[in-house]
């Protein structure tokens, strides 16, 4: 949680996951279908094939001046440094898993990299939500198997099809809620200490 010079509260959320698990597709869907919140522009730094080169970025602003800064990372292995830059200062992560069978090694690589990058922050309960994407893929692995093989059993998980917008809203709102609740809790704890 941060404030800008105008006093508005910002939360940064990063969509993390292998290429092409569907991070950009999911963020675009959020951007195009959001209601209630005010949406900002959509910025993409991508390659000629539409794969992300650096990041996608968009904002959602609530009436009460809380802003979610939403980013995707570039999932291709060679963009490691870009991913590190984008992940800095994040308040929550949506980990996007590609359910296709042959994507398992890439999913594993991606979650390991996230764990390495977050280090202590992962342990200290950084809000994370899992999107099991491409549930429509013909060779998709079962939810149970995906979660246990990736060691993700303890997180909120949503089965999604980003191309059709299925489950995206739930995954996003779940993470946003967790982030807001966590920060509310922090304030309440502090108040209790004062009393």
């Amino acid at each position, binding site marked *: *949680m*941060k*404030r*800008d*010079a*105008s*006093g508005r*509260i*910002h939360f*940064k959320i990063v969509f993390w996951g292998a290429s092409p698990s569907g991070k950009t597709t999911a963020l675009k869907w959020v951007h195009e279908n*959001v*209601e*209630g*919140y005010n949406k*900002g*522009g*959509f*910025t993409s*730094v991508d390659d000629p094939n539409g794969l992300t080169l*650096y*990041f996608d*970025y*968009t*904002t959602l602003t*609530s*009436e*009460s*001046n*809380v802003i979610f*800064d939403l*980013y995707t990372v570039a999932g291709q292995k060679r963009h490691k*440094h*870009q991913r*590190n*830059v*984008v992940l*800095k*200062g*994040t308040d929550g992560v949506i980990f996007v898993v590609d359910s296709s069978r042959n994507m398992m090694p890439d999913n594993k690589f991606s979650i390991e990299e996230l764990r390495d990058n977050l280090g202590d922050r992962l342990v200290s309960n950084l809000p994370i939500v899992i999107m099991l994407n491409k549930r429509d893929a013909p060779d998709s692995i079962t939810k149970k198997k995906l979660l246990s093989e990736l060691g993700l059993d303890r997180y909120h998980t949503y089965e999604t099809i980003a191309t059709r917008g299925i489950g995206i*809203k739930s995954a*996003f*709102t779940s993470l*946003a*809620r967790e982030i*807001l*609740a966590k*920060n*509310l809790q922090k*304030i*309440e704890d*502090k*108040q209790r200490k*004062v009393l």
Partner: protein
Amino acid sequence: MLNVKAFDEILSKIIKSESGIKKVILVDRTGLTIAHVSKFSYYPVDIDGIGAIASAVFCASEEQGKNLDIGELKIVTSEFDDGKIFAASCGKGVLCVITEADVNIGMVRLVIKKGSDKLQQILDEFLAEKPVAPTPTPETTKEMAEKEELEAALKELEKF
């Protein structure tokens, strides 16, 4: 508590100091736009998006410098047909100056150097503070206000 004016004042001074400067944006190294000023709004731009890229570009160059072991990064200059972008390190932030193509580069660099020293200072104070409401209020009231904002955002989330 620092007020918004402290940033605005410095950014405005920068933008006024040379005729070719069109926009000045202060971002942090996580892509957050902290403050900005513009001379004219020729066309509406997504400042937050511009800030995010500015920060990312600067951090990427910084990373490149680390990999090549060539010391600290000071200024990144991007030259386009119809304009230039300067991004300069200022402590925990990045100062981004957008200009016309035929600007006095030397002058811009000078202005950036002067401005970034001052910005670095107030930025450190700004970031060191607990994130609180912009008006000076007793600690508990600030927290109450903060709580209300977060609760309101939570409610709005349900409309999404």
